[in-house]
């Protein structure tokens, strides 16, 4: 399993995203190293199809599908938690579900 965390320094959420990602991987017994990729400019954002920071991809697939039409750019990503709140991070259960489905 390949696990990537794409991040941009303009958003303060990436350390928390990495900690959360590593916690859930550990809890699920998945021995995968997280590859952290810093996105530094708009050109790289377009090339990497980066919808915002943080973006977590497992085996190349975003754990939460970005909204259609959202531009690829240096921005903070808006997630929704399962109870409907806005959040700078994906819901931990969405993360867990994505990891389980790949690990199965």
């Amino acid at each position, binding site marked *: 399993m390949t696990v990537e965390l794409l991040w941009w320094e303009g958003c303060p959420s990436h350390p928390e995203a990495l900690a959360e990602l590593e916690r859930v991987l550990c809890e699920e017994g998945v021995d995968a190293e997280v590859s952290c990729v810093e996105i530094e400019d708009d050109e790289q954002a377009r090339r990497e199809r980066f919808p915002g920071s943080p973006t977590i991809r497992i085996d190349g697939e975003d754990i939460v599908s970005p909204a259609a039409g959202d531009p690829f750019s240096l921005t*903070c990503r808006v997630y929704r938690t399962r109870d409907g709140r*806005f959040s700078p991070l994906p819901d931990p259960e969405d993360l867990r579900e994505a990891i389980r489905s790949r690990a199965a």
Partner: protein
Amino acid sequence: MSLGIGEPAPDFTLPDTAGEEHSLAGPAVVVFTCNHCPYALAWHDRIASAARDYPDVRFYAVNPNDAERYPRDSLEAMRQRVENEDWPMPYLRDESQEVARAFGANTTPDVFVLDADGRLRYRGAPDADHRDSSLKASWLREALDSVLAGEEVARPETDPIGCSVKWRR
């Protein structure tokens, strides 16, 4: 340079989403905010509730972001948001970014509480945790209670947490 505690805030007049101009008058809360930032969105309802609970205080939500690079912060996107939501405060466009620069705003959100003389009495985050709506913008409310009672603000500064202000290049 950021505005320091006790210093007079810079005057401003900015248009809202309907084109009506609003000028700063204290006591006031100036919140630099935007549409595209998850932190600003997470805290928005708590700040709006405080605006409803303090009718004697003027609240100004100011969006300073570069809308060319961040189209979700365009005037039209701001207008749509105000039309679709219940806003108890004007949502102002700081097109030149001069107001954000004069205040020294760093993030969205970034909260500034001004007393009746327009002096800065609190600057920082609305409360301690964007994830916990039960906090109800407690740091902002504590500051307002002190300002309205004519007392010193016990916690005049906290670290603003959020997305960086998107300056023009």
